[in-house]
């Protein structure tokens, strides 16, 4: 399946784009999505250990599964305020 991933902040800057499409084998976990992200876009690898993933507007853990039409966002730890 293909999933669209939005990137923010340093993740966006490292990748050089604000979104990309990943090809994953179902069923795919968030952990597998992160690995695929590192393969597709090596510039993001330094950020992977800290990378946060949201599906819709909820944070998700590495073990959760990703559905094909999920609204996925990846970004570094937040630093607002």
């Amino acid at each position, binding site marked *: 399946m293909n999933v669209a991933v939005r990137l923010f*902040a340093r993740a966006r800057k490292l990748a050089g784009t604000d979104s990309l499409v990943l090809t994953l084998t179902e069923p795919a976990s968030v952990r597998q999505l992160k690995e695929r992200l590192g393969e597709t876009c090596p510039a993001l690898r330094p950020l992977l250990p*800290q990378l946060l993933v949201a599906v819709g507007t909820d*944070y998700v853990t590495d*073990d959760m599964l990703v559905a094909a039409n999920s609204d996925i966002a990846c970004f570094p730890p*937040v630093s*607002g305020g």
Partner: protein
Amino acid sequence: MVRLTREPIDYAALTERVRSSQAGAVVLFLGTVREMTAGRRTIALDYEAYPEMAIIKMQQLCDEASTRWPITAAAIEHRLGRLELGEISVALAVSSPHRADAFEAGRFLIDRLKEIVPVWKQENWDDGTTEWVHPDSTMTAKLAMQSPSHEEADGRSETN
């Protein structure tokens, strides 16, 4: 009563929105662009958000504060874009019948906002370099510590 804006924050308007004759106490918190950080001089900050999620998270924080303290009203506004020294990046106001609750809820709101609301800042140092601010992430640690069984039994993602 949560908002993202690219204009200067009108914190008096925000404060008026939470004032009430049911409340004897109002606490307003302002985060402002500080010049010196660990001995380095900032000239400006650039704020970026994942806006749809940031709004939802800010509203969840207000709702959670309302369940934890007997507050009358809460409001949060976060600014995005380039902010110069001294400008207000975030304003939050909370009202309650008694002051202890207003102080505690206000502290909770800004502490949790800095943990879970998807907003990021980039430093513009006076030497011409820029740098994304990366705090140690409470959220990364929390997500990493969750067991799969808990997640599955729970049937929903952990958000805060």
